[in-house]
């Protein structure tokens, strides 16, 4: 029976969204005496702080407080994992744009004006700006991760063919439409109430308590919804919440800190850009025999989540392929740039993209269709199915996905048509690529895979639902509500979805790693099942049947050929003094990983997908369009097909933005110069492929025991966009007369055109010049 699970139910906030009635932090009625905060950001890239002078700022009428790290009453370090990560710069600034001081004033304009009056004396220090330099000098934030199986070096040495090279994959700004914002309000007993746009209320609570020098029970964090998160509010909302809280405690007044777009883009971390170096050996058919891969990610100035991001890049550097001998090294590079953080896919996209690129290179080298190289290397179902981290893949559905998409996309026929088009078209070239996705589901830090829920039934039969998942648009609230509606057999209108609060469900994990519905859905299901058992016990004698015969459906409790309204059973339970609230808890079973030895089963299951994208390229300018995309994605038995479709489509276009037009550009002084939508371009409606065909794989419920056999869907579809980038590479190769081109990401028109030019120049160079080099 699936009356609510698996239905395309609308987002619970949709009517409010469209009416402008959904409230975000900055929309909330402002409390009496509210102060507005602003930040002074570092104007140096790496420098010792000699002196901070707040006097001019404090003199401005309307300014109520100005603070530096020295004014933090508790522990000023807010590192989520590895210290140091001071909430405001301490002794040194480590990137251009690092928050150094904060102001609270009567109005926002005054606060921002005062922030500019803060004077800092610096002594410049040498800065490291590039990943390659950090790799060269071994400047790392954390120890490397190494995944190894077999002897990759020996296998490559013995292989009939070898290729080596490097590529770069750019970072990506989250560009959540709602920037970072927190509202801190002092309460009785020195408590602090925070309303914060965060994916991780518990961590905000923990860190606010830390900077205030208070126990966690003094701090409550609430988040009703975010205007987008994408990973950018997993750890990095905390800094601004902490600053607001310190200012609030100091002034004994409520304080709101909302970054403007430029500050947000300058001062908060992004997707890690990566430098990848590969060395691969393969046979005449393109079968990979040995693969040695280095993945160096830019952590920026502090560790943040970089360790786990680089780990996940390494975990996904197999993409969907079996390597008989493999060595994957992941480096967490330290540079004097903003501290990079979680972003949808969390390193996975970078690892996968690197390997899909290598596959493409092998195909070009052998003169084969890259699809055939993919197929020959694809993981087997029962053999050739061991990952580089020694986890066997037991749920492989890639062959089915390939087969279905090859047919529905007419790949082989279009490949021929494109070859014919390119042969006769001089100025325009087409490209096509088909790439798979296999994404491991679970936090790779195993203990994070836990969730709690609190379900309350009131005497009138209405239900209040609380859990640790946060809503950033992805629909976790409605999905979890569907689960509870399903268990109780009642309509969604009887379930009140509430804001996520740390005083309702404690010690939660971030809503991240695509896990929101998996973990919180299971926890809420358990809470609801506990309550349903209690209600069944009450209903059974009333219905003259046994509790195990009682059925909850359509707002009724049925059994023994009779039915009672759900609310009536609830009322009877109340009279019988039965508790009508319950906590549910869930911990993902069977997962473990030994990082030191690179071995374990970090993932509970895998989510799969495959996509074919076609590109059209202007050889004069490097401009391009994506003319068609065919997506086939695996959601298991989708909890909500409408929500999941939104994740697939949105993830794909966000991935396409990352790999094509979204370029973060730092100048030679380490200043980010693309810090607003005028200079940093995310896709618009026209950038969606003109012919866009999206399907969900049918008939494949998750073999793992997930909530209603659904699969996580937040991150995996983003990687379907790798097909778009490699379609461009395909077109660029055609433009370069079939030569191999090095096409880094983002593949802006400039990068595409210069890649073609470089390939042509290389070909034009006399042979001895090549040899001499």
């Amino acid at each position, binding site marked *: 029976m699936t009356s609510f699970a698996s239905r395309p139910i609308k987002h619970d906030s949709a009517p409010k969204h469209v009416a402008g009635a959904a409230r975000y932090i900055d929309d909330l009625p402002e409390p009496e005496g509210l102060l507005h905060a602003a930040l002074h950001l570092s104007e140096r890239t790496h420098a010792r702080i000699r002196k901070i002078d707040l006097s001019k700022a404090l003199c401005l009428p309307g300014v109520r407080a100005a603070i530096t790290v020295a004014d933090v009453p508790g522990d000023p370090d807010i590192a989520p994992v590895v210290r140091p990560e001071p909430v405001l710069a301490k002794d040194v600034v480590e990137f251009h744009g690092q928050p150094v001081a904060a102001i609270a004033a009567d109005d926002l304009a005054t606060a921002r004006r005062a922030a500019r009056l803060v004077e800092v004396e610096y002594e410049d220090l040498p800065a490291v700006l590039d990943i390659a330099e950090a790799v060269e000098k071994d400047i790392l934030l954390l120890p490397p991760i190494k995944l190894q199986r077999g002897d990759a070096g020996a296998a490559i040495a013995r292989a009939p063919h070898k290729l080596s090279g490097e590529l770069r994959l750019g970072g990506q700004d989250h560009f959540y439409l709602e920037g970072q914002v927190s509202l801190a309000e002092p309460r009785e007993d020195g408590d602090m109430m925070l309303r914060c746009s965060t994916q991780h209320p518990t961590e905000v609570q923990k860190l606010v308590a830390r900077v205030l020098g208070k126990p966690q029970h003094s701090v409550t964090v609430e988040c009703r919804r975010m205007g987008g998160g994408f990973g950018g509010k997993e750890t990095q909302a905390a800094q601004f919440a902490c600053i607001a809280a310190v200012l609030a405690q100091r002034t004994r007044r409520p304080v709101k800190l909302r970054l403007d777009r430029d500050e947000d883009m300058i001062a908060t971390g992004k997707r890690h850009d990566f430098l990848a170096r590969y060395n691969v050996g393969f046979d005449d058919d393109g079968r990979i025999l040995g693969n040695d891969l280095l993945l160096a990610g830019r952590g920026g100035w502090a560790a943040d989540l970089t360790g786990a991001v680089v780990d996940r890049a390494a975990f996904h550097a197999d993409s969907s392929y079996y390597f008989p001998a493999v060595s994957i090294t992941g480096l967490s590079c330290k540079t004097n740039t903003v501290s990079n953080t979680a972003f949808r896919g969390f390193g996975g996209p970078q690892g996968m993209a690197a390997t899909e690129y290598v596959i493409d290179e092998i195909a070009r080298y052998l003169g084969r269709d890259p699809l055939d190289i993919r197929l020959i290397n694809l993981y087997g179902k029962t053999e050739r199915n061991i990952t580089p981290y020694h986890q066997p893949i037991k749920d492989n559905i890639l062959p089915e996905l390939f087969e279905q998409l090859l047919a529905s996309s007419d790949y082989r026929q279009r490949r021929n048509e494109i070859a014919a088009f390119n042969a006769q078209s001089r100025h325009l070239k087409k490209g096509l690529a088909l790439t798979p996705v296999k994404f491991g589901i679970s936090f790779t830090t195993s203990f994070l895979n836990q969730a709690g829920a609190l379900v309350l039934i009131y005497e009138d039969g209405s239900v209040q639902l609380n859990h640790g998942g946060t809503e950033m648009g992805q629909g976790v609230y409605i999905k979890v509500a569907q689960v509870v509606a399903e268990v109780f057999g009642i309509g969604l209108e009887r379930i009140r979805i509430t804001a996520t609060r740390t005083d309702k469900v404690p010690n939660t994990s971030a809503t991240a790693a695509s896990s929101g519905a998996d973990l919180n859905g299971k926890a809420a299901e358990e809470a609801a099942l506990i309550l349903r058992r209690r209600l069944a016990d009450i209903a059974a004698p009333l219905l003259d049947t046994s509790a195990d015969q009682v059925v909850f459906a359509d707002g009724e409790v049925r059994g023994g050929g009779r039915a009672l309204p759900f609310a009536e059973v609830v009322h009877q339970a109340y009279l019988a003094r039965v508790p009508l609230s319950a906590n549910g808890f869930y911990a993902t079973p069977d997962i473990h990983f030994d990082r030191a030895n690179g071995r374990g089963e970090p993932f509970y299951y895998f989510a799969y997908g495959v996509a074919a994208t076609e590109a059209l390229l202007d050889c004069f*300018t490097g401009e391009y369009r994506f003319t068609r995309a065919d997506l086939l994605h695996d959601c298991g038995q989708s909890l909500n097909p409408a929500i999941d479709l939104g994740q697939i489509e949105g993830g794909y276009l966000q991935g396409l933005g990352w790999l094509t037009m979204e370029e973060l550009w730092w100048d030679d002084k380490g200043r980010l110069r693309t810090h607003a939508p005028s200079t940093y371009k995310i896709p618009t409606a026209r950038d969606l492929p003109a012919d866009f065909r999206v399907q969900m794989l049918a008939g494949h419920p998750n073999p793992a025991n997930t909530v209603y056999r659904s699969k996580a869907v937040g991150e995996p579809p983003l990687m379907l966009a790798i097909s778009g980038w490699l379609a461009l590479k395909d077109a660029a190769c055609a433009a370069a007369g079939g030569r191999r081109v090095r096409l880094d990401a983002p593949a802006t028109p400039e990068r595409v055109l*210069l890649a073609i030019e470089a390939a042509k120049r290389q070909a034009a160079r006399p042979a001895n010049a090549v040899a001499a080099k």
Partner: protein
Amino acid sequence: MSEPVRFVCSGQVVTVGRDVPHTMTVLDYLRRQLRRTGTKEGCAEGDCGACTVVIGELSDGGGLRYRAVNACILFVHQLDGKALFTVEDLAEGEKLHPVQQAMVDAHGSQCGFCTPGFVMSLFAYFHQHAAPDDDSLKDALAGNLCRCTGYRPILEAGRRMFELAQDDRFSRAEAALAAQLAGLKRSRMLRHSTAAGEFIAPGSIAELAEVLAGRPQGETWILAGGTDVGLWVTKQRRSPRSIVYLGRVAELQRIADHGDRIEIGAGVTYKDAFAAIQALHPEFARMLRRLGSEQIRNSGTLGGNVANGSPIGDSMPAMIALGATVQLRSRSGSRSLALEDFYLGYRKTALQAGEFVESVTVMKPKTDSRFAVYKLSKRFDQDISAVLGAFHVILDGGQVAGARIGFGGMAAVPARARKTEAALLGRRLAEAEIAPAVAALAEDFQPLSDMRASSTYRLLAAQNLLRKFCAEVNEGRRIGVEAAQ
């Protein structure tokens, strides 16, 4: 002496308080003064569309015109005499407007933060079109960024809303609103001053000249559409003594046909100039479709683009190639300059104290001429050009008898490629014959590297644009990814 600024919102006449500073944006006014928080701030620079609101104005025909604009870079005083629609206005109690209902039905919102802006852009589209078409819908939404959905469901909502209804309560109440707006008509110059400064909207060109003559240049901003001036406030946090607004100067809102040329007043928006330019130079108009976004084109003006003098302004290279002139005016008289001579250096123009741009004049095409404009940017829509090249040649028996080539993004000012032009004279546009002209581009320009493009790409792309222009002339067709679709 301050006079109240008045506009209509939710059927009521709103009087802007006398203490409201002259740099207050509509967005801040809505969110802070009126506590209408449905309209969101996403970027405060007119690039994301989260703050989109719709302005209703009396059209020349007497009906109402709906324009989507960015509230974040529109000053509240610019609303004088107009109607303002925000996302809160659309639903009637619990009953959603067809635009809103279509968005809900199509699953067009996820996080919801961009949604009010999309709803308002679609609301304007609903009033401007009888039926949807894919291309114009994408044009209308190019100024609204969504990071969640991938846009497919929003485009679907844009089609579905026409299935739900053909009109709405706003179209049915237009006459009443028009009457209300007529009542706000102002006969005298608008002048609103506070301790912070003044906002002045002259009603005639003589008044404008008079106002400017009496004020120091550095502390007086001339405001046309505000699509750049707005950012001086929101991004640079500057505040001038005086803002002088061109929107009510009747003479500046005109497009005049002078036989062999058209003259476009400095207050004419891109959107209003579009039809006139489309009729004369469709290639130019095609590029204008990509200049800014619907919201920007509804606010910004060609005259503002010209006067602002940015080296990456998009309209100027095209107009330079077309031989445009700019008419300057002050209290003491007027003068005309070739557009390329108007630019003296980086952000430096020939404008003198008290002088303003009155109009630009563009020649109509000659039958033997070929003209094309190419805009290169990372993103097709609403992006600032890395390179913009405009080519205009007159052919005589297949040979180039005259050439004007304008470039943006290649130098400190929008500029002509004079050496390249010279190298083309007497040549056929064949690949082999244009090689010296292609090489000459490197003598005309030594472009910079910045976040939009490297100098290498800029020069190579500029040279390839010349090659492309010649290929298009020779093959008699447009070549490019847009043309191919």
